[in-house]
C-alpha cells in the first residue's frame, strides 16, 4: 500500500537555526498538508497546499514557516530561526483530491527537538 514518507525521523537543531523537514506524498495525490503535535497535545493544522500554492494556513503558520514543492515528488516545510517552542512532531499528509470525504493519509512524522 502506498504511503507518505517523511525524513528525517528525528532532527535535533540549535535554537535560531533553520530546519527543513521533507515529505514524499503518495504519488497520485494532489493535496498536501503539514500538521504538528506538541508532546501530549492534540494534532494541529499548519498549512495545506494545492497546485503549487498555499490554499489554507493556520494562525501558527507565520512568517517563520514556508512550504515548497521543489520537484514532482517532494514537499518540504522550512522553519527559519527556530525557537524552543517549535519542538514537536511534524506530520505530513496528502490526499488524492480536495473533497471533504477524501481521506488524508499521514506519514510517521519527524520529531523536531530544538536545543
Amino acid at each position, binding site marked *: 500500500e502506498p504511503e507518505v514518507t517523511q525524513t528525517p525521523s528525528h532532527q535535533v537543531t540549535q535554537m535560531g537555526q533553520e530546519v527543513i523537514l521533507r515529505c514524499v506524498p503518495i504519488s497520485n495525490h494532489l493535496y498536501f*498538508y503539514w*500538521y504538528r503535535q506538541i508532546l501530549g*497535545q*492534540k*494534532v494541529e493544522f499548519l498549512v495545506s497546499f*494545492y497546485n503549487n500554492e498555499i490554499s*489554507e494556513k493556520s494562525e501558527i503558520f507565520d512568517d517563520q514557516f514556508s512550504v515548497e514543492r521543489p520537484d514532482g515528488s517532494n514537499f518540504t516545510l522550512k522553519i527559519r530561526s527556530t525557537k524552543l517552542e517549535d519542538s514537536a512532531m511534524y506530520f505530513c499528509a496528502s490526499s488524492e483530491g480536495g473533497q*471533504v470525504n477524501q*481521506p488524508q493519509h499521514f506519514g*510517521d512524522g519527524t520529531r523536531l527537538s530544538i536545543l
Partner: protein
Amino acid sequence: QQQVKQSPQSLIVQKGGISIINCAYENTAFDYFPWYQQFPGKGPALLIAIRPDVSEKKEGRFTISFNKSAKQFSLHIMDSQPGDSATYFCAARRKTSGSRLTFGEGTQLTVNP
C-alpha cells in the same frame, strides 16, 4: 467555534469489553467526521468516518454514532482487544475543498488482556 472537544482523556477496558469515546463540536459548517488511530511512533491512520446525513456507520468492530442536533459523535469499539490499545483522535472537516482537519484532544485507550 473551530474546536472539537473529546473525552475521556484516557480509558482502560478489559479484553472483550466495549470502548466508548465521545466528541462534541460547535461549528455547523463541519461536514465530515473521521476517527484516527495512532500507535506510538506512528502517524495518525484513518479508522472510520461519517457524514452528518447518517446517524450511524459500522465497520467491523468499530461504529460511529452521530447526533446532528446535539452536535456530538462517538466511537464504539466492540469486543475490544489488546491490539486496539492506541491513542484515538476524533476530527472534523468543513466542506471546502482541501480543508483542514480539526482534531480533538485524543483518548489513550488501554485494553487489558
